[in-house]
């Protein structure tokens, strides 16, 4: 009886470990898929660090400036 209980407990524990491993792989994949869905081409544009830095570069190069102003935080998608 005692041996049976121990065996059952061991089997249950092993099942929980297997389920946890399976769940972890699935969740990790789902999170990865979500992260990879980001459209982030805009990050490749060589943005200047600030408006003043851009103005200085624009004057130095005698070249127009492209300014996009927005509300929120473009970096976090909260905009």
């Amino acid at each position, binding site marked *: 009886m005692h041996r049976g209980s121990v065996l059952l407990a061991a089997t*249950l*524990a092993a099942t*929980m*470990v297997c*389920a*946890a491993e399976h*769940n*972890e792989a699935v*969740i*990790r994949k*789902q*999170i990865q898929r*979500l*992260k990879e*869905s*980001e*459209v*982030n*081409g*805009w990050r*490749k*544009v*060589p*943005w*200047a*660090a*600030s*408006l*003043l*830095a*851009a*103005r200085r*570069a*624009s*004057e130095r*190069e*005698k*070249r*127009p*400036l*492209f*300014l*996009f*102003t*927005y*509300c*929120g*935080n*473009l*970096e*976090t*998608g*909260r*905009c």
Partner: protein
Amino acid sequence: MRVSSLSDPRVMDLISTYFVPVLVSRDDYQRTPRSEDEKAELLRIDRECARRGLKGGSVCVFLLAANGDLLATQRVQQACKPENLLPLLQQLIAEQKLRPRSQEAIQASAAQPAAIAPSRDRKEVEGPFLHIWTRLDTGPNYGLGHDRVALSVAQCQAFLPPADAKPGTSWNIPEEITRPLFQYGYPPFPQWEAKDCKVQKGTLKATLAAISEDEARIQLEGEMLLKFPLGRPSEGYITARFVGLAREDRKKQTLTSLMLMSEQAEYVWYWQGKPQLRKMRIALELGP
């Protein structure tokens, strides 16, 4: 704009090659406030825009000459479509007979990635951090929302099993721990302030799945109800069921992994009194 025109390869190519490009947030949300000189320059541009009767606004493209004169503007409603922004850029390039910038000049004016990247939660300099990603899966594409919040020691410890826990032991993560984390589970919208969100429900149940001398594995499941007003008088809310896992380093008694995922979250908002449903996904993950 960031997922449409600013990520359109044709627009990216023109603004990278022929212009000095710069992004400016009007309110520095989650960012270091800008200098007084920069505020003054932005004000000068806005005033010139108004004086000349050009279409301006908070969310707008401004094209400036090398001496700072305003050449043209395009509001976001138009500029977010590449077919509107491209002709404006092409026209200016042709009129001014612009030649491509040299790689040296581009590199000289470009910010180091670190100068714009760590804009999240700048006040928090020490981790560990929890990353929260949100995405609407139906309707217009607003891209991905991504917040990063620092976890306190108390928040981390709440996920760790009690000292005498055995596989199968469950405990509830207190709502005062989950609420500040679930608060960021709102969709990436122009309504962007986290403080406007109110967590109505934020339950999380932890169950010890496996334990050894080195490691404990914890399964997580929970629910979230988040109020998220989208303008007035409409009010919206997000419902989500989460499943997840955490790991503890037993020797160091620290949280080494934490993941929560909701694949079938729903965002409901109201239009003329009728509920409008949009599917969304929410993920939370411990990270640098």
